[in-house]
């Protein structure tokens, strides 16, 4: 690698870390609420913490947990978690051309994708700033791990998380990312249509599928000529 591009990478990485901090703060509380709920469901302290540290995907963790909390088995919980994660497949495909190196190196780089880092690293022209993405993920991983430790250990003292309104954190987190994405009228229309598709499918499909199906509306990008 040449000197100037190293410097650019370093700058992007540092900007990413800075941009990731507010999401990390919110992630801390999200992960803490996961720790509390996991303990209430019957996870040991170690299990709650290890889940956050090696799965590191909020929606999949919450989806799998909610399935087993209501008495579901491992296959159902895995399916729910994987369906929630299916959006990372779409994000990975989008990111792929921006990642250099061999397949193994790209696979490792792909692990850094979380919703906020992916959205912030998007340059808006179909390419991604990978160092910004890596940087944005770092503070979020640290606080995600810390949050689960606090939630798992001190969760009993908190009591009912529903009463505390912690379920309002997750949507606001995604909403803040969404607002930065509504750049032009086509992205606004796709957002509205994607939301409607997801809501329409809620009663007739397993959790996770409505979200994946919403990504299908992006196929209008095929027919709509950019002007």
């Amino acid at each position, binding site marked *: 690698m040449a000197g100037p591009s190293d410097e650019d990478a370093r700058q992007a990485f540092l900007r990413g870390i800075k941009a990731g901090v507010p999401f990390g703060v919110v992630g801390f509380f999200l992960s803490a609420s996961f720790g509390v709920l996991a303990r209430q469901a*019957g996870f040991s302290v170690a299990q709650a913490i290890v889940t956050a540290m090696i799965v590191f995907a909020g929606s999949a963790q919450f989806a799998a947990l909610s399935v087993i909390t209501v008495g579901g088995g491992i296959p159902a919980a895995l399916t729910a978690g994987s369906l929630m994660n299916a959006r990372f497949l779409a994000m990975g495909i*989008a990111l*792929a051309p921006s990642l250099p190196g061999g397949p193994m190196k790209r696979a490792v780089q792909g692990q850094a994708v979380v919703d906020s880092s992916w959205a912030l690293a998007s340059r808006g022209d179909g390419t991604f700033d990978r160092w910004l993405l890596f940087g944005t993920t770092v503070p979020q991983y640290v606080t995600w791990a810390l949050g689960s430790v606090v939630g798992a250990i001190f969760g009993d003292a908190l009591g009912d998380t529903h009463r505390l309104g912690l379920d309002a954190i997750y949507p606001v987190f995604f909403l803040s990312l969404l607002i930065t994405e509504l750049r032009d009228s086509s992205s606004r229309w796709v957002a509205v249509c994607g939301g409607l598709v997801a809501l329409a499918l809620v009663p007739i499909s397993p959790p996770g599928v409505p979200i994946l199906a919403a990504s299908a509306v992006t196929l209008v990008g095929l027919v709509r000529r950019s002007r």
Partner: protein
Amino acid sequence: MTLTHAEVWVLIVCLAAMTVLIKALGPVLLGGRQLPPWFSRVIVLMAPALLTALVVTSVFASGRSWSVGAHTVGVGVAAVMLWRRCSLVLCVVVAVLVTAGLRAI
């Protein structure tokens, strides 16, 4: 929960493996390749579609039915604040306080 301690570990490890696999698949299959312009047009629209779906399903649905609750109001207030460019952390705090407040009365 009906799972044993050991079964929970199996679930955790499988869920982690599945997540790694899903995140690796796109970069492994499509990396380092120049993709056609129509592809970028679709990709640019992916984020608004997925993010809106995540927001509406967590705010207007619970499991497999439509439902609204105190958190819908809390998130709604935060949405207005986000639009007015308030900081994310402040918006989250307000959303939680409004939701908890409504549930307390």
